[in-house]
């Protein structure tokens, strides 16, 4: 399938391994990525905090650019924060015709217009809803057998449920669980899986921010997780890049590897760990990867 692809900023900034691994995984899943290279940052809620109309207009422009990608089935992102921030703007744009027309008037100078109802799905949602877990399971070459994976959803992709279309028929807040199982791994439930990583306040209240990250990593450790997986690069920054500092704040060693979603999928589909950028993590995923043979730990003769 062809998608208008919005990678976001952080996946091309401080977590380049996310963008890189998505590019490796997409062809294996028959996803053609048409990158929205003229689009701008979603604002991560901060631009909306400054000026709602500015955030809504910038995102309406992104949606309009996505709508221009010929033959694309929908818009796809790889960042929970983009998903949440864009969904919030889209809710307002779709919810009120007069407001949408007002925003489109600003876009008209560029010859763009946003039409209500664009489908913008995170890679996680797209895998479950468009490709199907059965099909993905059938593509697995290196099952995650014996690997205990803790899902870390982050906030923006699970709340508020009505805005994000989460209900009994569309249980998007369980998709990471289902995916881990489809790839042959074992889901580890732990207290922090739906909580906040603390990243939004890292510059404002570092202690509270790192306490959040450290506590969730510790909870996962206590539940015997081998690694976490997250659909959000901002969560990844607080859980991985800041993990050495989080260890100091919570006063315990953690050493918990955190995978990006496409990295976990890529591992199961048989890709080489280094190709997926796993060597770029601050906490080396040694519990996930046997570096000598490039197979999953605890999986004899895998791959």
């Amino acid at each position, binding site marked *: 399938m062809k998608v208008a692809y919005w990678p976001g900023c952080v996946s091309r900034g401080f977590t380049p391994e996310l963008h890189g691994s998505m590019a490796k995984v997409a062809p294996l899943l028959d996803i053609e990525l048409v990158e929205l290279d003229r689009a701008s940052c979603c604002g991560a809620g901060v631009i909306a905090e400054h000026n709602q*109309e500015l955030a809504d207009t910038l995102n309406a422009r992104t949606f309009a650019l996505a709508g221009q990608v010929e033959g694309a089935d929908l818009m796809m992102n790889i960042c929970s924060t983009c998903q949440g921030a864009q969904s919030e703007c889209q809710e307002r744009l779709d919810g009120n015709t007069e407001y949408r027309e007002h925003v489109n008037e600003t876009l008209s100078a560029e010859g763009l217009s946003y039409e209500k109802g664009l489908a913008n799905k995170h890679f996680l949602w797209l895998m479950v809803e468009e490709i199907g877990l059965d099909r993905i399971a059938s593509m697995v070459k290196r099952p995650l057998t014996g690997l205990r994976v803790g899902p870390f959803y982050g906030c923006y992709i699970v709340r508020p449920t009505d805005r994000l279309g989460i209900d009994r028929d569309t249980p998007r807040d369980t998709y990471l669980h289902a995916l881990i199982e489809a790839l042959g791994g074992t889901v580890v439930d732990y207290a922090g899986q739906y909580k906040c990583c603390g990243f939004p306040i890292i510059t404002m209240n570092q202690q509270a921010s790192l*306490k959040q990250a450290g506590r969730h990593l510790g909870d996962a450790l206590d539940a015997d997780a081998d690694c976490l997986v997250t659909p959000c690069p901002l969560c990844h920054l607080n859980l991985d890049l800041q993990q050495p500092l989080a260890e100091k704040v919570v006063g315990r060693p953690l050493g918990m590897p955190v995978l990006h979603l496409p990295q976990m999928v890529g591992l199961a589909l048989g890709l080489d760990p280094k190709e997926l950028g796993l060597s770029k993590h601050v906490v080396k995923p040694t519990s996930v990867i046997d570096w000598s043979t490039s197979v999953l730990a605890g999986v004899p003769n895998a791959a």
Partner: protein
Amino acid sequence: MAEYTLRLRRYSPETGEAPYWEDFQVDLDGHRSVLDGILQARDRTDGSIGIRCSCRAAICGSCGVRINGRPNLACHMHLDKATENAVDGIITVEPMGNMPVLKDLIVDMDAVHWKKIQRVTPWLLPDGPDPEREHIVAPESMIDVTQSMACIQCGACVSDCLSMEVDPLFIGPAALAKAYRFVGDPRDGQHYERLKDLAEDPHGIYDCTHCFNCIEACPKGVAPMSQIMRLRRIAGSDHEIDDRNNGHRHEQAFVKNIERNGLLHEADLLPDSYGGKFHPRAIPVLTGSLPAILKALQRGKVTPRKALLHSHKAGDDVKRIYKHVHDKEERYELNLYVAGEEDEPGDDAPQAGHADAAGSHLPEERSPNQ
């Protein structure tokens, strides 16, 4: 009549025993509330079950609990709906979080919730002498605060506030929503003083972590986090209040970063949030971040070139949008709570916005169990 199993969290501090779970069978129609179930268990099985309740109609805010792990009013959740979301069909009911438990399902609202509400001076502070009769205000000028006025002080948002979980001093969602109720009230004469106070408090408006838990928790659609963002917007943009947590400077640095670059250039964001790379405020922050920066360089997450230079620049159209929006005399905002959702595209639901909200109707209250 159907049979439901309620698994209640029991705790009596005077016994010295740890909290424990206890199951109760109740016979009630599915459309009856979880509160009805608890009251039947208390009437028929164990008179010592502690639950606080009054109106049974989702208006007094007394019976806040966690049902199947999520905060709600016990009277606002039907038994059949609760069963649908229950593991193994057993409805679990436990006391709200972030507040000490007094007994069973009753938490100490005075110790946390009401104390924080008092913290924000929850009454009108008008300027000048009292008018001879009542304050006269245009109806449309009050519409913006109707969302925060819908709060029934149940504490559900406080229960699940993730900032408060790690920072108990955080003023919190309910109290900050209440603060907006007065900051947005044209009769109040202390807007600047209120905002300055809430921004200066290191556990104030910039301590919210944007987790949406309070929006999800609120049974009345108050969306406390949205009110906190409004407080930030007015404090920063209208009053230019620089806060102790550096929240306003961070916001300014972020917004300008995107105006300049189109995409976020992270390496600039941190120093710019503190006044720039060479500002005395930034030095200790950058020094403190050095281990993380060095680690990122060592792992090849970033290269020195990428950290220092940012090849991506904002296009003219992004800059034009910035200018167009910033040049306006008034911010244009849409609050869907006030405006209501449209049924069909093109229908004439009134829009919100500060100046044009006259005649807006309030949406129907969120339905039970939503």
